[in-house]
């Protein structure tokens, strides 16, 4: 089905400029790829380590985001408490904060000299500059994506289905598992995909809080940044890999958010 658009032509023209603005650098980058050396470049041990580490830590961070973010969204969307608006603003803060600041904040909390770092030190656990630190940094910046999309979805579906379920005799936990979560499942999925994408691209907080140790904390974006100094061709090849992964993620998000819209309407 197509509907007649009522958008003025000059709007279309500006939109086209915007699209070119986004696409041109990406296209330009592909022209710089040394295709003959592409696979050897991305298959070097350092690149492979970085890619696998990135995927592993991003998946772990996504899991953290779902486990913590779903309850946070439920509390924000379904309860009222004093200071709720402030709490919401603070939870979403990592969205707008420069990631470096996130890294500094994480160091202050979990670093060796940090607030909780000393306690962990006593227990023999060191978080900063470990793979755990990478996951924490990624979770810190990615969590708001899940909370934001899920809280919105929870507000859109409203509480009417939950009220009906309760009057049919379902306890709050039953309502949650059998009604609320199935209804917002598409939003959880698209939120998780967005979080994964944000985690995958994380750079600033990771570098500050976790450092850049091959195979331990050097994720793909860090590796690309590093390679750019020594081997620009490798950097471009790896960048292309990240672009493709990101494209897949974006495609997946659009599909799942499409499901969200359909299931609500």
């Amino acid at each position, binding site marked *: 089905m197509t509907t007649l658009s009522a958008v003025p032509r000059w709007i279309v023209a500006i939109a086209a400029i915007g699209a070119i603005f986004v696409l041109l650098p990406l296209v330009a980058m592909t022209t710089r790829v040394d295709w003959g050396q592409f696979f050897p470049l991305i298959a070097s041990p350092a690149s492979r380590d970085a890619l696998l580490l990135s995927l592993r830590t991003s998946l772990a961070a996504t899991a953290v985001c779902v486990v913590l973010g779903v309850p946070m969204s439920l509390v924000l969307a379904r309860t009222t408490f004093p200071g709720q608006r402030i709490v919401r603003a603070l939870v979403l803060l990592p969205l707008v904060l420069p990631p470096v600041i996130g890294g500094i904040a994480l160091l202050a909390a979990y670093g060796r000299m940090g607030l909780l770092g000393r306690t962990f030190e006593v227990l023999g656990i060191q978080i900063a500059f470990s793979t755990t630190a990478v996951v924490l940094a990624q979770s810190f910046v990615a969590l708001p994506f899940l909370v934001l999309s899920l809280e919105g979805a929870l507000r859109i579906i409203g509480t*009417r*289905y939950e*009220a*009906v*379920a*309760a*009057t*049919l*005799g*379902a*306890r*709050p936990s*039953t*309502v949650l598992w*059998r*009604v609320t979560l*199935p*209804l917002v*499942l598409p939003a959880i999925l698209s939120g998780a995909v967005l979080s994964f994408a944000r985690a995958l691209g994380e750079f600033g907080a990771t570098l500050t809080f976790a450092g850049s140790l091959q195979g331990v904390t050097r994720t793909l974006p860090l590796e690309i940044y590093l390679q750019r100094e020594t081997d620009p061709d490798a950097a471009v090849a790896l960048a292309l890999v990240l672009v493709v992964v990101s494209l897949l993620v974006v495609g997946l998000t659009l599909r799942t958010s499409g499901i969200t819209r359909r*299931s609500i309407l």
Partner: protein
Amino acid sequence: MTGLVFRARVAARRFEVSLDVPEGTTVAVLGPNGAGKSTLLELVAGLLRPDSGAADWQGTGFFGEGLWLPPHRRGVALLAQEALLFPHLSVLENVAFGPRSAGQSRAASRQAARRWLDEVEAGDLADKRPGELSGGQAQRVAIARALAADPALLLLDEPLAALDIAVTPTLRRMLRRVLVGRTAIIVTHEVLDALTLADRVVVLGHGGVVEQGDTQEVLERPRHPFTAELAGLNLLLGHVVAGGLETAVGRVVAATGLAVGTRGGAAVRPSAITVHAREPEVRPGNTVLRVEVSDLEPRGDVIRLRSEALFADLTPARAADLDLVPGSAAWFSFAADDVSLYGL
């Protein structure tokens, strides 16, 4: 005490109502939008906490001082205007939701669900998804789902209002069948719903109970202009005199067995009123009242002519003949036989 005993106040909604629903009876709650009908249901269902008040069902407290029973433990099922079937579950799973939540096995809940679907003549819809149903089918399934939860008290919030006019009679008949012997509160602004489904009516007006009683009694002999309006009747209030009722707009001639001087109400159907553009001759046994036309309102195949105290229904042809406009003087006449005069 048997049945529901309810009294609650919600200041923010200017709601203050006390209400009893004896076990096994269906009570219709009538009232205009904003009268507090939905608030009443939300309070009974446990979806809203009152500022003060108390309610209990057969001795089990729903709310009260220091007492709050959560909705899932009240045994109160709510059927809303929209079916609100869970979109991610099949029709059968929707109906099985109540029994399943009550702890029955999957097999037993499904068996119960099939039985209730058959009861509402929707057995063939079991495997469908809610999105595939028409409005009438969905509401049928919602009725089955509510009944399958085996509620002690059934709350119906305008269950027929959102449906296509062609399917409402069938569903109304079905509701009448399933409500027999059940305790239920049905919120509606359709007098027909009250007459077919309810034993008693409660009329709410702006946050409080205006009048209540036996359905027929209340709707045929309204005591409040508001109820009369709902029932589609003219109501004139006044005091009884020899041969009629003295009201603010004039004397109504009617047979009366009431003591002179007591307060009384006279109910007249708007279709029984003859409208004249000039003062007619007064025949014995007829009442003639002079009114000022305030409004002409098309209602289906009649025109409702309103004045401050009375309204009359005319055919469009008659209305055109009379050529009355807001502000015109008119005379309403009706026979004593068409007046129902009763004591208040």
